[in-house]
């Protein structure tokens, strides 16, 4: 039972990170019908920005400021940097392709992804960087309930991603910008005719999605410590999968999908077999797709004549 709860915590931690990445995919898809394959690379850059802020402030062993401001600065810098990167990518790689066949922006996105990955390799070299989180926040601190222990870092990750998701939900459902985003995603042309500045809404969507990815990057750096140029690819794939499983373009769906994949990974690796972990996850996902062809919470695709 304790083991089960421990795995549950692991799964939720992993899942909340995937969910944050998936949100970026899903929001962009909702508005542009574009699979933003460069999203994983934005997340990788966020993790690197967090790392450089941490080293700039003296490293994990001897930070110049108390722990809380260090963490806040790391998150803010990574989120802002990732957000700006997302906006630049949209402006130069996707905007010229707004009305092109749907596969063209996909290839452009793959190009951006290759370019960013190679840039990271060139600028930061191939070596693994580590956040050294235990020196910043000892893993022993945290909540203890009987034999079960949840470290502070994990609580921080789960807590801040829940906070970000609530903030996003409020933004989408309660603000003018959110209303504009929903309108554009429903029908871009009609929204433009109603006086919505579509370009501005798209830029805002990319910014918000990338901000979430940047935050996810720092979280992964804190929990798993290692940061490297190739990390965006796999995480991007998982985030994309989460978005599709939940019903792409659907915000609660992306959260659910992320959580589901995180849990599936944690439980299949600990209970069944670590060699076949990915196989089991993919098997579950294919089954979900075949049973619900447009994702768990997605609305079925309408056939128009």
């Amino acid at each position, binding site marked *: 039972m304790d083991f089960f709860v421990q795995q549950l915590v692991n799964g939720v931690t992993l899942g909340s990170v995937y969910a944050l990445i998936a949100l970026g995919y899903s929001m962009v898809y909702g508005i542009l019908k574009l699979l933003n394959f460069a999203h994983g690379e934005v997340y990788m850059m966020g993790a690197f920005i967090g790392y450089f802020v941490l080293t700039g402030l003296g490293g994990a062993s001897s930070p110049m400021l108390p722990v809380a401001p260090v963490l806040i600065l790391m998150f803010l810098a990574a989120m802002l940097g990732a957000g700006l990167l997302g906006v630049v990518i949209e402006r130069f790689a996707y905007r010229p392709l707004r009305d092109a066949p749907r596969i063209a922006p996909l290839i452009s996105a793959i190009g951006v992804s290759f370019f*960013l990955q190679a840039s990271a390799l*060139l600028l930061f070299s191939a070596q693994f960087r580590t956040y050294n989180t235990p020196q910043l926040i000892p893993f022993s601190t945290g909540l203890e309930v009987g034999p079960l222990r949840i470290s502070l870092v994990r609580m921080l990750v789960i807590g801040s991603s829940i906070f970000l998701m609530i903030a996003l939900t409020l933004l989408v459902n309660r603000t003018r910008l959110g209303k504009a985003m929903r309108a554009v995603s429903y029908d871009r042309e009609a929204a433009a005719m109603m006086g919505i500045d579509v370009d501005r809404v798209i830029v805002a969507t990319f910014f918000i999605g990338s901000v979430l990815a940047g935050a996810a990057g720092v979280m992964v750096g804190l929990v798993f410590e290692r940061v490297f140029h190739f990390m965006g690819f796999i995480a991007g794939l998982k985030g994309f999968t989460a978005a599709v499983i939940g019903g*792409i373009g659907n915000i609660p769906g992306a959260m659910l999908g992320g959580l589901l994949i995180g849990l599936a990974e944690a439980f299949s690796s600990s209970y069944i077999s670590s060699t076949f972990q990915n196989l089991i996850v993919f098997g579950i996902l294919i089954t979900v797709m075949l049973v619900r062809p447009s994702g768990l919470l997605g609305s079925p695709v309408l056939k128009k004549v």
Partner: protein
Amino acid sequence: MPRIGTDEWVEQQELRTEYYTGLTAPARRAFDRVGPGPRFLTFLAICALFPFLTDSPFLIRVGVNVLLFALLALGLNIVVGWAGLLDLGYVAFYGFGAYMYAWVSSGQFDIHLPTELAIPLVVTASALLGLLLGLPSWRLVGDYLAITTLFFAQIFVELALNLDRLQLPWMDEPLDLTGGPNGIPGIDRMDILGIELPGVRDYFFLLLIVFALVVIGLYYVNESRTGRGWRASREDPLAAELMTTPVNRLKLLAFAMGAAIAGLSGSIFAAVQTGVFPQNFEVVLLIMIYAALILGGAGSISGAILGAIIVASVPEILRTPENARFLFYAAAIAVLVATVRPWQRLAVVVAAVVAFGAVLYQLVALAWPVGVEGELTGGRFSGLLESWMVIPAENQELIGNIAFVLLVASVLTLTLLRGDARLMLLVPTLYLASFVWENRLIAQPSVTRQLLFGAILVAMMTRRPHGLLGTPRVENPV
């Protein structure tokens, strides 16, 4: 821009009657008058001459890769270009073909089938697998189909990695199916109708024959009832179905044909490499095949071939610094010639870049002498760059990195500017590009390849979204 209501045929008709201007016009008109048959024969003849022009096994191996890529792109073209199904699991068929060939002609199970039997077996098995994995396309559309097929590709790699000690209940010993991460080495060379194929050169010719047959076959399939059915169901599945096109059967047929071609090229690949390894069939390869197809133009046979040539050969030329330097400056000049017009303006830009470098070099030499004391990497052409290219002896990496970021920023700004401002910025950008090249990139060919590949994909797509030889067509918004 395609006009609403213009279909593919009308669009091509306009292209056919397009009036060319400029110096190359007679050549282009003459090229247009030659039909597809003679054009393809000329292409084949040039390809067949290639192994006689060079002795280098490396170059012939590049040729083999180009042909393999062309076959893969042609197979993918059936599924993606014609039937319009986004199949991200395509590379699994290639891998399956390779492993299947390895099973029936290597020491793995000690089966050594004759090649004439092995190849049809592999192709049939791949086609059946294609039918099976194509089934989800009945229910799933668009990106949902894409993600599901991507899972198949991932599952294939996972299986190849992990099926090396499969414990079956009725067996005492664990079964080694795929050799795990070490793959299956020692695959038999092919031996067709008594002709042995020992070297890479022989496989080049085998591939060329296979390639020619596949292209001819696909040409007729495309013109046939089936080809029209594919295109109809791509444009509008519902309308096509109402017109009694068997959409679901055509989808499966597309999957099976694509898989058969992929399996065939997989088996040849396995024989050329004399081994199969899981890392040969990862998602990166899939991305490269897609890039080849989309660069060339999805839906077009010649486009797929052209894309494959670009994607498979350009990265290889970048491998050695001497070639890379030559290629870099040649490409820079080619891009300038293509984009800056008229030629007087081009001459001004080139002269300005040369002058800019020379002045900058002297300034740096005066202000910070260490800044010009570094050595150029690679031998050839380096004499020409002396007292023009600033090579710092200290902090080269850091300065190079800053210059790289500046370069990206200025290239992006260039795309926003028009007119004289663009030319003004072009001069320092060009110098910056060669600075980054000489100081940072030339020593790291693999990073450079990836950087350039990514940049080319973005640049190509934003310029020509329908690919080099593709036909622009109007898509229904989803």
